[in-house]
């Protein structure tokens, strides 16, 4: 059993397809692992053992009937608790949604089920995906299996930790400012943010609608690409979904795995090469880039002068949208309701519910966003941030005229100790310094393991033009051939 949980998803799928192992066995192995280690890791908020085993049995039955199965059929997957799952609790790491069981599946979950993937449960996250450490979960932090005193990144720390704890071979995350990539980097796993609009947001509980992007998390580049192919594609239920074919991400990952990058121009972002990052991180990234060059890639230094304004622009746009998106949590229709004792007004009940239901970081962002959208401040804050967003997009467009992909560190620092950055929000926000530009632009980006610093994983980020997700998978898979993912210590 223990070897099953260490296998990549592609291999598990092949074993299941060949009948060498059943999906139920694979699923049970992972459920056993969760039972054994999740008390220490706390990657999951909800484990749906019954649902998972039923789904696995269904895949096995269909296989026995000779039905054609998808390339990941029967493989377990962990889903970030920000995606709705019909009848299964969906909390977004918030007290305000405690006990809510959505009456519908998100499009991503629908596609996972249709492809025969087995949903193990819902993973921990910073409340409403706001945070970079998973410490802002209302249900307690997730612990990084590399060092249980450290954070696993965030907001999708649960998904990333579940992979590196071998609780799940695949996971789904959502990336608004780096919530897939930064946890990927600090856990030594692969985390990809697809092109905005390339994966459906229907059923993804909104934090910042113009930035939120669901995407795949895995331990290998090929696994991430396979999962990407399952969940991506146009969805008429999401108006911002792109009506175009999914880029050939799996083929690109296989091409990259040949280790040949000749003819690929990689742009090294000058603004992200010096200040703000730990020396060990910068050194590992430099080595990663050198490895890419050895594989035939042509390095080009490019300047993206407005990237340095991405963080402040993001911290106006995302809170503005979140202040509106989170207004619906008022205790009237679902979730928590506080103070409804017959003596209080509706307004008081709404207010008490929100006071009790939201954590400090969520409240902070709602306040910032409410302020930024207020009459008299809109132009100076939200309006100005949108202009910066346009300038950042132009930086990307100009850079991609010279190069095929851009590379930079994923995050400035390795996994930090739990509690070390919660007292200063800005120190926490810096974790997303390098990931935010892609969100503002909308293009795809992936974090791929790139060695260690101080014994902890470092991620290299590869950014590509919109709807050219395949390019980043090619480069990431090539890097993987020479810089294999680090193996975490046993739990």
């Amino acid at each position: 059993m223990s070897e099953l949980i260490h296998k990549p998803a592609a291999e598990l799928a092949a074993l299941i397809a060949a009948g060498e192992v059943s999906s139920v066995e694979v699923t049970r192995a992972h459920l056993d692992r969760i039972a054994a280690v999740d008390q220490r890791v706390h990657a999951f908020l909800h484990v749906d053992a019954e649902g998972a085993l039923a789904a696995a049995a269904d895949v096995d039955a269909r296989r026995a009937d000779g039905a054609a199965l998808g390339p990941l059929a029967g493989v377990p997957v962990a889903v970030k608790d920000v995606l709705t799952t019909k009848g299964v609790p969906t909390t977004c790491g918030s007290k305000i949604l405690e006990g809510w069981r959505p009456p519908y599946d998100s499009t991503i979950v629908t596609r996972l089920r249709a492809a025969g993937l087995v949903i193990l449960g819902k993973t921990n996250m910073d409340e409403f995906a706001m945070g970079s450490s998973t410490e802002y979960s209302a249900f307690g932090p997730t612990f990084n299996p590399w060092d249980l005193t450290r954070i696993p990144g965030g907001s999708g720390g649960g998904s990333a930790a579940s992979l590196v704890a071998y609780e799940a071979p695949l996971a789904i995350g959502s990336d608004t400012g780096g919530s897939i990539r930064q946890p990927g980097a600090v856990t030594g796993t692969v985390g990809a943010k697809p092109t905005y609009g390339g994966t459906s947001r229907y059923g993804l509980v909104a934090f910042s609608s113009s930035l939120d992007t669901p995407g795949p998390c895995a331990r290998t580049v090929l696994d991430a690409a396979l999962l990407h192919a399952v969940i991506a594609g146009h969805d008429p239920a999401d108006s911002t979904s792109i009506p175009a074919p999914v880029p050939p991400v799996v083929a690109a990952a296989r091409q990259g795995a040949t280790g040949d990058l000749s003819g690929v121009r990689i742009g090294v972002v000058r603004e992200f090469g010096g200040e703000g990052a730990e020396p060990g991180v910068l050194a590992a990234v430099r080595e990663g880039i050198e490895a890419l060059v050895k594989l035939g890639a042509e390095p080009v230094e490019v300047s993206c002068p407005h990237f340095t304004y991405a963080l402040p622009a993001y911290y106006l746009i995302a809170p503005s949208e979140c202040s509106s998106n989170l207004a619906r949590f008022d205790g009237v229709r679902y979730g928590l309701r506080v103070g409804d004792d017959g003596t209080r007004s509706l307004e008081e009940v709404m207010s008490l519910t929100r006071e009790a239901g939201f954590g400090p970081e969520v409240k902070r962002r709602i306040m910032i966003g409410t302020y930024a959208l207020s009459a008299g401040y809109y132009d100076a804050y939200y309006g100005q941030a949108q202009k910066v967003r346009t300038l950042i997009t132009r930086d990307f467009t100009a850079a991609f005229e010279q190069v095929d992909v851009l590379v930079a560190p994923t995050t400035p620092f390795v996994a930090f100790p739990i509690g070390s950055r919660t007292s200063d929000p800005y120190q926490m926000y810096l974790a997303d310094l390098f990931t935010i530009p892609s969100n503002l632009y909308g293009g795809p980006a992936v974090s791929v393991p790139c060695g260690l610093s101080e014994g902890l994983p470092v991620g290299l980020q590869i950014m590509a033009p919109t709807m050219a997700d395949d390019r980043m998978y090619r480069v990431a898979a090539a890097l993987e051939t020479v810089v294999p993912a680090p193996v975490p210590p046993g739990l």
Partner: protein
Amino acid sequence: MSTMTVSYEDATARYEPVIGLETHVELGTRTKMFCGCPTEFGAEPNTHVCPVCLGLPGSLPVANRAAIEATIRIGLALNCTIASWCRFARKNYFYPDMPKNFQISQYDEPLCVDGWLDVLIDGQTVRVGIERVHLEEDTGKTLHLGGATGRIHGATESLVDYNRAGIPLVEIVTKPVPGTGARAPQVARAYVTELREVVRSLGVSDVRMEQGSMRCDVNTSLNRPGEPWGTRTETKNVNSLRSVERAVRSEILRQAALLDEGGRIVQETRHFHEDTGDTRPGRSKETATDYRYFPEPDLVPLAPDPAWVATLRAALPESPRARRDRLQAAWGLSDHDMQSVLNAGALALIETTVAAGTTPEAARKWWLGELSRVANETAADLGTLATPSQVAELQKLIDDGKLTDKLARTVLEGVVSGEGSPAEVMAARGLEVVSDTGALGAAVDEAIAANPDVAAKVRDGKVAAAGVIVGAVMKATRGQADAKTVRELVLARLTG
């Protein structure tokens, strides 16, 4: 509150009113604005709902193309420019009938802008400018229990029905309308009336004010001649055409009295009270006055294809005004007579009756006469009493000599009470004109025999006296004879 009272004539002599109207029209699309739920009125509460119109976490809106098309058509009918690119925006405020606590609406980029609508007041045309026509989603409906007023304050329990949440709503905003003086209330009413006709002619809404599918807010301000416009108030809860007129009038009187006292008009939302006919300060339903509008990130911008807009423009129906002018000319009616037709709501009924072969005069006579009388007495909708084809059939029976006018009224009574078509009623009640000259002749002979003195007078040349004998014949035939025929028979016997 002012204690002084002012006469309306005095008020409008001293102050010039400026009015403005915001009208909401619920579109009659099959499905809601951003989801596939049905829009039917009157379903069990909370049965026409889904994750999208309930605003459940994770749900996303998808714009209804039919609603966008209807809005563009309204814009075109109101002579607006259609935006080549525009966006939806979020209007943020907390209220339990709003599932998301924001309304998807349009803000600084409406779909249609800068149009006009002409209305006729006492034969004079007043052009009302249209500022904008935009598209938004309706809210749910709250029912407050336990309070004295049915309002949320003082209520012990509130129930929410989200069936209406997400129904497409078009908001039509006029530019300020100055210079109408004492006629301002009339202009307001005439505008809403005409707007209703326009929207109805497009077939995009049933525009029923009593069901709330058309709702109106009235803005009013007063200024002294030559001075800048005054502070305006917004009056809500104006739920009928009559109320539109009364609300403006009442607000003019209230503001004039206040200004006379040296008071200041406060910019506020007021509620019109149907029972008392006055406006009172409304408790603003939203707690925030700053809606924090921003472009709706869940929807892509709207860029109507100019070719599509051109197609819609070309396919617009005849405007209500052009239709009225055409029919008035065709029927040869005076302005006054035409107005009676319009007031009775009989235009389409008469038009269809005429199309079924009746003369305009006859059609008008039935619809404005007998049928309007019944409609008024029973407070029924004119169109529900009889169909134009029934009226046409009735008239044909008269023209064919099978019914007299008087008999026809009785037949119509039967038709109205649902006894069947005019021919069926006539047969069932045995009301056909007695045209059998043999039978009539016998009745005439009897009457002459019974009135020898009168018969003698007629024979002596006092023809006018024949009426007594005619009357006797009519009585004997229970009115089913044609009086003219009877008279001819009587005279033939006595003077022939």
